[in-house]
């Protein structure tokens, strides 16, 4: 089996695993990075969102083989950054997290959005997060949290 090499949360790693495995399973089972959640396994809910070369991707639909040579950031990697602190605080201030199963994915999607568009409008946030389902909040508090993060973290993105 060929080695698959990629950068995971800032570290170069290489694995010898079935290349058809879902990146989600590799992250959770092989690297024990269980902050990336599985909600649907079919790319609808976004609970498994990770950043691949800075863009938000559903890791349940991403075969390990395609990870070769890529930079992968999970919530565990993002959690070490200042931007994460801002996002976390903003989610707290606006009440953007309830059951929490979608929250890491939401935060990854917000990070991806803000890195492309540091001052998004309400509408742009709704579009930016539309690949991440939340069943608890009705989204408004999450939208406000992302606005708040953009405000508190101005200059970071």
């Amino acid at each position, binding site marked *: 089996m060929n080695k698959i090499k990629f950068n995971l949360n800032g570290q170069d790693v290489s694995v010898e695993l079935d290349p058809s495995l879902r990146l989600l399973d590799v992250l959770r089972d092989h690297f024990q990075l269980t902050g990336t959640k599985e909600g649907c396994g079919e790319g609808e809910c976004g609970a498994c969102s990770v950043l691949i070369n800075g863009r938000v991707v559903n890791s349940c639909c991403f075969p390990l083989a395609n990870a070769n040579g890529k930079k992968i950031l999970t919530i565990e990697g993002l959690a070490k950054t200042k931007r994460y602190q801002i996002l976390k605080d903003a989610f707290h201030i606006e*009440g953007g997290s309830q*059951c929490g199963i979608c929250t890491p994915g939401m935060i990854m999607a917000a990070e991806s959005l803000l890195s492309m568009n540091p001052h998004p409008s309400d509408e742009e946030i709704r579009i930016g997060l539309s690949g991440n*389902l939340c069943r*608890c909040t009705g*989204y*408004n*508090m999450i939208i406000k949290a992302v606005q708040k993060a953009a405000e508190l973290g101005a200059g970071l993105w």
Partner: protein
Amino acid sequence: MFDPNKSTPKVDHEEKCSGEAKYVADIILNNTLFAKTVRSSIAKGKIVSFSIPELPNGYYVVDHRDVVKENYVKMVFTDWPVFTSERVNYIGEPIMLIVGPDKLVIDEIISQIKITYEEEEGVFDLVNSVAHKSFKKGDFQEASKRAVRTIKETFETGYQEQAYIEPQGMLAYLEEGGKVTLIGSMQCPYYIKNAVINTLGYPEDKVRVIQPAVGGAFGGKEEFPSTTACQLATAVVKIKQPIKMIFEREEDMLVTTKRHPSSITLEAKIDENNKVLGIKAEVGLDAGAYIGLSAVVLSRAMLAVTDAYTIDNLDVSGNVYVTNTVPTGAFRGFGSPQMIFAIEMFMTHLAKDLGVDPFAFRLNHLVKQGDLTSTSGFFRDPIIMKDMIKKAVAMSDYHKKIKEYSKPGVYKGIGMSWFLHGCGFTGDGESTHIKSRVRLVKDEQDIVYLYIAAVDMGQGAKTSLKRVVAMVLDVPNEQVVFDYPDTDFAPDSGPTVASRTMMIVGGLLARAAQKLKDSWQKGQYQEIIEQYKQPDYIEWDESKLQGDAYPSYSWGVNVVEVEVSPITYEVQLKGIWSVYDIGKAIDERMVIGQADGGITQGVAYGYLENMRHEKGKLRQKNLTDYIIPTSMDMPPMETVIMDNPFLYGPYGAKGVGELTFVGGAPAVALAIEDAIKRKVNRIPATPEYIMELINNE
């Protein structure tokens, strides 16, 4: 010193953002095996034979022959097998588990299993009644004689899937001494414990249930996890190794309980002054293959018959029907959403048929303090609905929009629902069935521990219940500890359902905390146990469904504005405004979070979420074809909480979780009706249905 309204940081906020919170799928034990269920592929029939391939080493079959004692899952009505043995009654019914170390090998084994059935014609219509209930108020017959008009309509509602983002899952293992321990996504640790005790025939101290973080539940994790728990408990006793079963989304959608489809017929008797003298109601609920909780759901549906209106004469009856379809069960609102939809539409339709203004007509029938409830109990507490309606009207500019949108060719609409929700279990359920107990322990360092079985499934119980105790004790939040429930430590404070957690469990905790405060001895271990006591005023006759069905009611007003495309008939939400009376908000931000989420689900129930079956086979089986709202579907929302403290609730708090759901569907359906200028009698009001209404005239 403390302001209950004030919001505090959610105690689990950090770990939920960082992904460190452990849900059942994240918990890893050494040597854990995985389990997957082999399910029936037909809706009704007899299992003639099955062939299982030779199993590799370390793989097991677990089926009805392995059940230690009772092959039924203990619920309100115990008719649901742990594993079916000879007959199957719906597509997806569990027949056996395949257990082993590698999920791919398990899938391979399952693909080779062949089951032969003797298929029978399934029953899919509401014809087999298995539970019948009825009650009366006043004298409907006599009222009929005085009436000058009779208007009768039927309303239909469809399935709704809870669609929690964390699928169902459970992990079972044996502790030393053979104690069966279950960790899983759940709402009711003691429902699971009691069900497992029943199926294993074990004593109480040999079964333990622990709740990890739960990723949403909405009723879907009320009774259903008991079935998974009984299966895994059976398996773990046989195999004696940890076993984990996490549902895939498709399996979760196809086989877990959903909201009951319903058919509700209402007949009104009206006098010459356009006063509704009486209503006759017939409610039918589709329970699917097993009764489970359905008779209780039926009660709640029937009790809500007059919603926020006072009607003096009622003749209400209802039936639970079994069909060869997936069993239905608990879902936020528990029968009430179906009825509130029907009656809200009906009241508006009556006014339209009588040629009077629906707003004024409904207002003329609005409940006042002191009125009799549908079951001839009393609305004892102050009712502030008139102020709430006024507020909602102003916030949404309702009257102006209603007038503007009535013009022909305008496909915009606005709808307003008025509703109530009974808080806690129906009637004397709290005192006769649940008998909640809570336990507070103070250690020598004066740290206070909460031991209760109430589950935080996202609604924030961990934060708000802890806060109630800290407020009563007048100590900082950090001095109070509330870990996830573990039945080895927490007494049975009842299930986390029925909008009872803050009002009942929070109320008990407040009383226990007051006792602790009054007897506080610095540096000493102290323990307080508090048991539920029914308020003296409650009188309830369960056999006749007469008296005070609930200790109190929460109230709400929802306004929804929509625009309907005259080309595609798609509905776009333009605005949502809500006003609630929940007594007192404990942590207002958290309450508004519940309110936003509740109405999102409620509105989606009314226009978006569509699930149907064809001869027992569900057509929607994943989040691709069962559509729940995304951030782009939801408009901005404005919510106001009005104070109206309830004497027996902690700091005046009543129920909140379900209330915020029940008004959504009628509000959006009334808005659609307003936009298309045709009566809506069915939800979800999908584009196909709207097209039918417009074209079939």
